[in-house]
C-alpha cells in the first residue's frame, strides 16, 4: 500500500500575528514507517479488540490484560527515548505515529483509543517532560512497557474548564506534602495496574492573588488517597474513570513534579498535545462510522434497492467522507507541527492554534458522523449489537474532554489576536 500523502497548501491565517507566514506552502506526509505502524495497530485492534469489545462495553469492563499487549507493540513508548524503554527518534517514532495508533485503535473502539491517548499524553508525558531522573526511572519503564498506567489529576468537581480554580491544596509539612481535596473524571486512575497519579494542587498564592499550582506525584495506594467507585458514563464504558479524594494524603517532598508553582503552565502544555490526540481519536470514530454506514447502505435493501441508492442516504455519507478527509488533514497537520516544534522548527503558538482547530473540527465532525451513521442503520443503529450505537454514545465526550468546543473557540479566537 502506498503511503498516504497529504499535501496541504495553506495560507496560514489562523496563526497568531507573530507567527503568521503569509502564503506559506506547507507540505507534510505520513511516512512508510507510519503506515507500517498503522497496519500493525489495525491488525491488533481487529484481532484483539473487535471480537471482545461488545462484551467489555456491556460489562463496563476494563481489559487490564490488553495494556501489556499494547506495551509489547511499543505503543506507549513512541514518544519516549530509548534509555527509558521507548523508541522516540527512531525512524517514524514521534507524536504523529502516536496519533496514527490512537486513530486506528479508536476506529475499532474509542475507549481503547483513549486508554492509549491518556496513558501516554496524561500519564507518561508529564513525568517524561517535567520529572527528574529519579522520578523517570521509578515510573517510566513500567508505564512504557504497559505493566502500569498513570493518571493525571487536574479536573475538580467544581472546576472543569476553569482549571486554575483549583481547590485541592498541598501544604509542605516538614519533608512531606499533605494533600487535601478531590479530583473528578480521572482517566486510568483506578485500574489494577495504576501506579501513580500526577495531581495538580494549590501550593500557595502568586503576587497577583491567583493560586499558585504545582504538580505532585501520588503513587497508587498512598494512605489518604481514595479512588472513588467508577463513574456510570454515557459512553467510554471500557475506559477507566474515577473521582479521587485526598484526606491528609502524605507524600515525600521529593514527589513534586517540575518546578513549584509551574503546575498551571505544565498542564496547559500537556493539554495542547492531548487535543491533537483527541482529534486523532475523533478521526478514528468518524472513519468507523463512514465504513460501517457505507457498507450498510450498499447491502441493506428496502423498496427493492440498496438504501444507498437514495440520495437522502448517499449525500449524507458523502458529507461524512468530507468530514473524514478534513479531519485527517487537520489532525496530521497539527501532529506534524507538534513534531516540527519538538525539533525546534515551529513555534508553540502554531501548535496551540493548530491543535485547537483540529480538536474543534474533528470532534464536532465525529459527533455528526455518528448521528448520520446511526440514522443510516435505522432501528438497528439503536441496538447495542451494532457498533454504530456504541460510537454514538462514545462520541459526545470528544466535544467535552481536553477542553470543550467552547474553550477551543476561545483559544482559536485569541490566536486570531482578538481581545481576550
Amino acid at each position, binding site marked *: 500500500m502506498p503511503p498516504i500523502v497529504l499535501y496541504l497548501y495553506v495560507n496560514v491565517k489562523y496563526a497568531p500575528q507573530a507567527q503568521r507566514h503569509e502564503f506559506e506552502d506547507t507540505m507534510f506526509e505520513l511516512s512508510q*514507517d507510519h503506515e507500517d505502524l498503522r497496519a*500493525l495497530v489495525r491488525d491488533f485492534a481487529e484481532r484483539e479488540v473487535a471480537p471482545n469489545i461488545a462484551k467489555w462495553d456491556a460489562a463496563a469492563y476494563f481489559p487490564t490484560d490488553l495494556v501489556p499487549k499494547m506495551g509489547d*507493540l*511499543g*505503543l506507549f513508548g513512541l514518544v519516549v527515548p530509548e534509555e527509558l524503554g521507548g523508541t522516540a527518534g527512531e525512524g517514524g517514532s514521534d507524536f504523529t*505515529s502516536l496519533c496514527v495508533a490512537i486513530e486506528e485503535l479508536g476506529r475499532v473502539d474509542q475507549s481503547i483509543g483513549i486508554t492509549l491517548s491518556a496513558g501516554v499524553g496524561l500519564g507518561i508525558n508529564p513525568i517524561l517532560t517535567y520529572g527528574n531522573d529519579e522520578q523517570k526511572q521509578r515510573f517510566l519503564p513500567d508505564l512504557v512497557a504497559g505493566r502500569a498506567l498513570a493518571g493525571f489529576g487536574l479536573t475538580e468537581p467544581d472546576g472543569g474548564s476553569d482549571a486554575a480554580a483549583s481547590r485541592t491544596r498541598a501544604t509542605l509539612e516538614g519533608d512531606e506534602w499533605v494533600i487535601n481535596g478531590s479530583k473528578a473524571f480521572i482517566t486510568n486512575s483506578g485500574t489494577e495496574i495504576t501506579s501513580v497519579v500526577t495531581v495538580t494542587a494549590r501550593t500557595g498564592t502568586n503576587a497577583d492573588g491567583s493560586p499558585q499550582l504545582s504538580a505532585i506525584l501520588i503513587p497508587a495506594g498512598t494512605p489518604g488517597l481514595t479512588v472513588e467507585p467508577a463513574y456510570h458514563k454515557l459512553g467510554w464504558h471500557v475506559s477507566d474513570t474515577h473521582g479521587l479524594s485526598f484526606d491528609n494524603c502524605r507524600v515525600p517532598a521529593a514527589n513534586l513534579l517540575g518546578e513549584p508553582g509551574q503546575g498551571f503552565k505544565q498542564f496547559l502544555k500537556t493539554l495542547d498535545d492531548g487535543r491533537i490526540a483527541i482529534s486523532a481519536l475523533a478521526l478514528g470514530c468518524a472513519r468507523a462510522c463512514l465504513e460501517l454506514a457505507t457498507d450498510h447502505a450498499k447491502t441493506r435493501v428496502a423498496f427493492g434497492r440498496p438504501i444507498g441508492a437514495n440520495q437522502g442516504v448517499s449525500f449524507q455519507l458523502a458529507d461524512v467522507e468530507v468530514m473524514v478527509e478534513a479531519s485527517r488533514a487537520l489532525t496530521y497537520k497539527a501532529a506534524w507541527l507538534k513534531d516540527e516544534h519538538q525539533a525546534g522548527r515551529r513555534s508553540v503558538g502554531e501548535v496551540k492554534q493548530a491543535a485547537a482547530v483540529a480538536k474543534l473540527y474533528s470532534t464536532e465532525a465525529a459527533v455528526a458522523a455518528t448521528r448520520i451513521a446511526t440514522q443510516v442503520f435505522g432501528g438497528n443503529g439503536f441496538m447495542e449489537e451494532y457498533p454504530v450505537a456504541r460510537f454514538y454514545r462514545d462520541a459526545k465526550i470528544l466535544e467535552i474532554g481536553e477542553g470543550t468546543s467552547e474553550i477551543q473557540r476561545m483559544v482559536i479566537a485569541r490566536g486570531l489576536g482578538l481581545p481576550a
Partner: protein
Amino acid sequence: MNIVVCVKYVPDAQAERTFDSSDNTTDRANVDGLLSELDEYAVEEALQIVEAGEGEVTVLTVGPASAADAIKKSLQMGAHRGVHVDDDAIHGSDAIATSLVLAEAIKKIGADNPVDLVVTGMASTDGAMGVVPTMLAERLGLPAVTLASELEVDGGSATIRRDGDTSTQSITATLPALVSVTDQINEPRYPSFKGIMAAKKKPVEHWSLADLGVDASQVGLDAAWTRVETFTARPPRSQGEIVNDEGDGGQKLAAFLGEHKFV
C-alpha cells in the same frame, strides 16, 4: 540452528476473493494481500526455536512483487533475513512447480550454511491444498513430519505431537527435516514498533528462476498438471424461510429439518 520458513502472500480472506478471468488463476492484483495467517504459526515457531537456543531464521517466499509484504511482516516479527523468488514465468504455477522452486531456493540458501530445519504452515489460506510441504520434503530428500501441534528440537532431532481424530502421535525425525505446523502450535506474536524499525535494515535477497537454475518451461501455467477450466461465482444466499410459531413451531421446525435431510 539454520531454519528456513516458507511463507506465502495470499489474498486477504476478509476481502472479496476471485479468479482472474483472463487465465483462471487467483486474482492477486485487485485484492489486498497479506502473509498467510497459517504461515504466521510457522514463523513464530521458528523464532521460538532460535530464541531458546541460537541460530538464524530465513523466510522464503515465491510470488510477485507484492509478496515482499509477506517477507516484511515476517522480518518485523523477528526473522533475520528474507529470500524472495520473483519471476514472471512462475505465474500460474501449480503445487508441483511451486515445490520445485522452493526446493531449489532452499538448496541455494543452504549452499554456504546447511539448513537444519524447514518449517511451513499446514496449508495456504488461498489454494488450501496442503501438499507443498510433503512435495518439498520429497524434492529435498528430507524426512517430513507434518501437522505438528507441538515441536521440540533437541540436538539432532525434531519431535512433534500430531493430534489425530483417534490418537495423538509423537513422531521424531532426524535433522535436517521438514516440519509443517498447525494453528494449534503457538500464538503468533504481533510485530512491535521496534520490530518494524529493525526489519528495514534486514537483508532480503531477490532471486529469479535463472539464479536457481530452474528452466522457465518447468513452471507456470503451461507446465501445470492441473488448471482451473471454468469458475462460477456461488449464487448469492437467498433469504431464509421464516416460520411463525403458532403453537406448532417445534413441529414445523422438525418438518423443515427432515425435509432438507438435516436430521
